[in-house]
């Protein structure tokens, strides 16, 4: 029987995926579990494993097409089978909700998002096992298959998986309907121990992996499944650090004027609105960048792209990891507008509602760890930008100043240390130094931005 292959939610938040590449062509034989295609979500490329077995009868969504979760991407079945009804159903689009499928559930989703691998036919039909209470006539022959495409699992298996840090998606369930049960977790842990044991032998590491590591009851090292976000962070920052030759310039900047600017502005506002240092930093950094266009560039291998617009990202720490939402065209926005953009972006970042266009394509980035009391640090460049500015805390310190008579004195000033990481492929040391000089000058006296 031909089965529709729907786009699955490969992460809890995924609503749509792009087919990056098909690993099979129409007519190929597909084994269950084979990587059918690669699906690009907003943050990563994931393998889509076939849930059904048979011939790939039709690729509905070619590589490059973007498909909503639940929509048809292919049909698997027996060679020569008639699949027109499946195709017709798919092209009919979402229908009005049927009364039985609940008010918020389009009927079509009901039908197509079930990852058909476990059809009733593959299971012993409604077992007439003795001892079954007759009252429960409607007991399904298989465990429920969830719309998310996540395999069913017993409560105990879920708890054990959580304790052991196992991603249940990595497991094949041996229970009815593919339910993952305790013995599947035990087997998986056993296989891990075996692998670790082999690895330890190969590397000549002394001390074998203790059996306790595979025991469900003993305390053990936890492996935490890597989220899509973390995979992205790891890949992008790894690439940046490996490929972009970083160099670092640091300056101490007197913040008195900026502090006064912010305080007087916020006090003058009577409606409770206030501006943050970050909004001021971004605006004034943008003003410095306009004088040094190389800072706002991207290395393209055979050429350097000088961006016409300054799209500045601000690194924001979330529980799940780092995101850097982008305020577009900072040079032409006022501080108030930047503040409003930031608030919106940060709020949505915290809710997990950032769209790709909210964080992609930063030409320059600011990372501010001042709130944690960090005095100074260096940051990894956030591609496609060529530079990132790392800001420490504003802290009062003794500073030597020379007055107009050439007299030195020690004064207490609120200082901030700003460290610029630059990609030497696009930015030379002198260019970065000139930029930092102007940046410091503008931050110490914002009026200089006007010249």
């Amino acid at each position, binding site marked *: 029987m031909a089965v529709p292959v729907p786009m699955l939610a490969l992460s809890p938040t995924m609503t749509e995926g792009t087919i990056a590449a098909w690993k099979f062509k129409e007519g190929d034989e597909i084994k269950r579990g084979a990587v059918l295609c690669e699906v690009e979500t907003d943050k990563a490329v994931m393998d889509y494993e076939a849930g059904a077995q048979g011939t790939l009868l039709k690729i509905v969504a070619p590589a490059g097409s973007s498909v909503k979760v639940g929509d048809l991407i292919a049909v698997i079945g027996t060679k020569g089978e008639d699949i027109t009804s499946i195709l017709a159903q798919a092209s009919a689009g979402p229908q009005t909700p049927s009364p039985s499928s609940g008010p918020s559930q389009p009927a079509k989703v009901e039908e197509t998002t079930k990852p058909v691998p476990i059809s009733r036919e593959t299971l012993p039909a409604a077992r007439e*096992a*003795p*001892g079954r*209470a*007759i*009252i*429960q006539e409607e007991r399904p022959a298989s465990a429920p298959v969830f719309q998310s495409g996540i395999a069913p699992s*017993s*409560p*105990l*298996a*879920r*708890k054990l998986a959580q304790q052991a840090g196992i991603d249940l998606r990595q497991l094949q369930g*041996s*229970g*009815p309907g593919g339910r993952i*049960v*305790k*013995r599947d977790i035990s087997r998986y842990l056993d296989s891990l121990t075996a692998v670790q044991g082999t690895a330890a032998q190969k590397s000549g590491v002394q001390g074998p992996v203790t059996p306790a590591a595979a025991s469900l009851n003993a305390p053990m090292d936890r492996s935490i499944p890597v989220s899509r976000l973390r995979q992205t962070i790891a890949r992008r920052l790894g690439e940046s650090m490996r490929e972009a030759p970083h160099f670092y310039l640091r300056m101490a900047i007197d913040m008195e004027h900026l502090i006064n600017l912010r305080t007087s502005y916020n006090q003058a506002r009577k409606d409770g609105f206030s501006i943050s240092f970050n909004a001021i930093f971004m605006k004034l950094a943008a003003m410095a960048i306009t004088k040094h266009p190389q800072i706002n560039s991207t290395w393209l291998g055979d050429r350097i792209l000088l961006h016409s617009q300054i799209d500045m990202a601000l690194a924001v720490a979330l529980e799940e990891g780092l995101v850097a939402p982008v305020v577009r065209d900072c040079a032409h926005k006022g501080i108030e507008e930047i503040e409003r953009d930031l608030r919106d972006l940060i709020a949505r970042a915290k809710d997990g509602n950032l769209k790709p266009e909210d964080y992609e394509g930063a030409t320059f980035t600011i990372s501010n760890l001042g709130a944690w009391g960090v005095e100074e640090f260096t940051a990894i460049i956030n591609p496609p930008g060529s530079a990132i500015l790392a800001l420490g805390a504003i802290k009062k310190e003794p500073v030597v100043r020379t007055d107009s008579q050439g007299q030195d004195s020690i004064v207490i000033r609120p200082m901030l240390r700003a460290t610029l990481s630059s990609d030497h492929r696009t930015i030379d040391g002198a260019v970065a130094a000139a930029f930092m000089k102007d940046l410091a000058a503008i931050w110490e006296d914002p009026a200089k931005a006007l010249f």
Partner: protein
Amino acid sequence: MAIITYREALNRALDEEMARDPSVFLMGEEVAEYDGAYKVSKGLLAKYGPKRVIDTPITELGFTGIGVGAAQVGLRPVIEWMTHNFALLALDQVVNNAAKMRYMSGGRFKMPIVFRGPNGPAEFLAAQHSQSFASYWAHIPGLKVVAPAFPADAYGLLKSAIRDDDPVVVLEAEMLYGTSGEVPDEETLVPIGKANVLRTGSDVTLISFSKPVRYCLEAAAELDKEGISAEVIDMRSLRPLDMARVYQSIEKTNRAVVVDEAWPLASVGSHIAYAISHDRFDLLDAPVELVASHDVPMPYNHQLELEVQPGVKKIISAVKRVLYLE
């Protein structure tokens, strides 16, 4: 320790309690002159006389109500129902008077009464006289309910029931009266509300009460031959239920099969299965199985009447389901 029958164990408990406390008396159909329909009261009339061993007319609601009134004013009646099938006629006295008097009087009236008699399927008794009403009583707040499966528990629980100041329903079983077992020679009380682990095991917990407990033990012995280690818990009391003891076992086995010879809907067994699923959800590796009687009136045909009830084969099959072996 003497080996005596379930019937003799009940008789000994009645005898000892009547000797100990002159306010205890036995009342019911045929309990005196005939020594009881199932001979549980054998010899008691001769020993305690017609004022304390009283034959009643065939009027369940009437003599049950007289018992409730007697308990309310300080006596300790033991009401024998010839079977629980006939006790249906007395439901109102038990549910609305015995179970609630203490509550409704603000604790001023105690209700030290025992209702006892055989319950559950027997043999060749057909639809009207072969059925389990355990859930009818267990359903009612204010009652205590016990269902012993062995002579020692029948003895010890009936004694506890007679001494209890609340109304206690004792579910005996016709098929158990003739079964034998060890009963301590010294006077022993079995506490109400305590389950008994009859067999320890690590793979699955079998939970039952009354007659099917014996099937569970047989099933466990069979399973043992296949290398499956089953723990068997005899609930003994149905109200209150000793779920703590059950949970202790589930923590070890992660799987449960509940066996109840009543019908499946709203039974004591279905409640136990619900409680496990709810309270120990994260510990379960498989849905709790309920082995119940088929949802039909008891057939007269002997093959069919055996077929509709829980039995060893059905229990083994359920165990294999929760172990994902079937």
